[in-house]
């Protein structure tokens, strides 16, 4: 079978999450890439090089700018006439688009897959990752989103796929893009970082969050994450949230500082290779998953740690 993999892009570049989706797609069979956007020739060229991609479909038009689901979904659904599977990364972009495509195709989506067992059997986490379900889809076409931490990233180089324009559809006039308030950061992206330093409610204020977490992250070349409580309290922006309903990460090292370890938080980081926890409560549940724990006051420990590294 051939899978159509949705290519996420930003400023003319293919986003990392797509590379894991390509790998998942290749477990189903041949992979074609689907690029939609405004003036996306450069993205199509980049997609054509991704190892494992044998053809790129491009839908280009001003109404496809910013990937508005109302405009992209009908184009993707139409392209699906020739494919057995639609595969997208389980990012906010993929989660926004794929179910809309699935409904247009009258297909029940398989969300956030961890593995491809065969062309209709997949595993996926449910209940905040406290259970792993093996499901078989009876739909003739599959619509799938892919958990990025569960699949290797395909190489950005290696293929020279053909590029084919497809009908770009028209503007539904249902929605329009107004603005993007991007949280600018020089640090690595959370979902692809090797090291993550994450802060929780215990940091107490945005000032203290930055004063303690940032220097440690800078020393380690790490990305910065946060618990929901820290985001709700305004210590960190929304896109720092790690967890069941935030970002799923699996770095080499995850350092949880002043985070209790609620199941919703663990859901987002418990597949990290090494977990370090700093918490003043030795009974905190985070210690049940931590490889290295240090019990004590973070306001003493973190500055000392930053200095000694």
């Amino acid at each position, binding site marked *: 079978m051939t899978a159509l993999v949705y290519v996420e892009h930003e400023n003319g570049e293919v986003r990392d999450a797509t590379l894991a989706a390509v790998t998942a797609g290749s477990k189903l069979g041949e992979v074609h890439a689907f690029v939609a956007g405004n003036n996306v020739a450069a993205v199509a060229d980049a997609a054509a090089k991704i190892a494992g991609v044998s053809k790129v479909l491009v839908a280009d038009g001003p109404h496809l700018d910013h990937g*508005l689901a*109302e405009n992209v*979904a009908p184009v993707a659904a139409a392209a699906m006439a020739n494919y057995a599977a639609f595969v997208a990364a389980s990012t*906010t*972009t993929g*989660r926004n688009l*794929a*179910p*809309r*495509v*699935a*409904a247009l195709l*009258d*297909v*029940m*989506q*398989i*969300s*956030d897959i961890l593995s491809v067992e065969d062309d209709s059997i997949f595993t996926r*986490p*449910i*209940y*905040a990752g*406290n*259970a*792993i*379900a093996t*499901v078989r*889809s*009876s*739909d003739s076409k599959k619509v799938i989103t892919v958990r990025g931490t569960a699949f290797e990233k395909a190489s950005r180089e290696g293929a020279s796929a053909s590029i084919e324009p497809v009908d770009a559809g028209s503007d539904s006039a*249902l*929605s*329009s*893009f*107004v*603005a*993007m*308030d*991007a*949280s600018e950061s020089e640090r690595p992206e959370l*979902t692809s970082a090797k*090291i993550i330093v994450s802060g929780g409610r215990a940091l107490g204020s945005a000032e203290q969050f930055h004063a303690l977490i940032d220097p440690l992250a800078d*020393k380690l070349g790490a990305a910065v994450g946060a618990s929901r409580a820290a*985001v709700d309290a305004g210590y960190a922006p*929304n*896109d720092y949230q790690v967890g069941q*309903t935030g970002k799923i990460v699996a770095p080499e*090292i995850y350092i949880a500082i002043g985070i209790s370890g609620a199941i919703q938080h663990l859901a987002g980081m*418990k597949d990290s290779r090494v977990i*370090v926890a700093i918490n003043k409560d030795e009974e905190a549940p985070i*210690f*049940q998953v931590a490889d*290295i*724990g*240090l019990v004590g006051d973070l306001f003493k420990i973190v500055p*000392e*740690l930053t200095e*000694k*590294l």
Partner: protein
Amino acid sequence: MKVLVAVKRVIDFNVKPRVKMDGSGVDLANVKMSMNPFDEIAVEEAIRLKERGVATEIVAVSIGPQKAQETLRTSLAMGADRAILVQTPDDIGSEVEPLAVAKILAKIASEEQPGMIILGKQAIDDDSNQTGQMLAALLGWPQGTFASKVEHADGQVTVTREVDGGLETDRLKLPAVITTDLRLNEPRYASLPNIMKAKSKPLATRTADELGVDITRRLETLKVAEPPKRQAGDKVGSVDELVGKLKTLGVVQ
């Protein structure tokens, strides 16, 4: 404008789910059940729209077993005006898939003609994050997913959305589907007098059959297993020891 909200009865978020020994699913016997937290946020948002004079009537809908009435009563106690339970057979219970839920909600929307439908972004049991987007597709409406702010003016809504790179703002024509994220609002608790009052608010019961929606599952669950368990590691006694460990791991030179 009428506002529809979709509320699902799920395991309470404070309960740690346990996988059944026979691998057939998660054990929900004698487990505390509550309204899906994102749906509480949806109900709250609808109430605020009504308080601002934008919404005129709030209709809460749940698809599930008879017990889902409790969830609907909670929404009525918070401030919804009436409720619809689309009752499912006991063997299906709350296992109706997002696509079928979306089809049922689309049918109800065609009867009720709401100006807005608010759902949670995700049910914390199946973690699907699909229903709102599917519903919008079936109705041919715009979708404002993962909303952290919803502003209504001149027949349009401006929705601020929590996305991976920050906050995106989109403008949608009405009618529209909105799905809630955590920072949209803080849901109120129902007061005792309002809980009493909710008992006499209308709650209609329907079935999928009568609405003409086939709820046969498309995904068959073959097995449910526990994820691999992590072992708790060692505690270190000082920052120096921690630095030593990090050096052994090659994190720092």
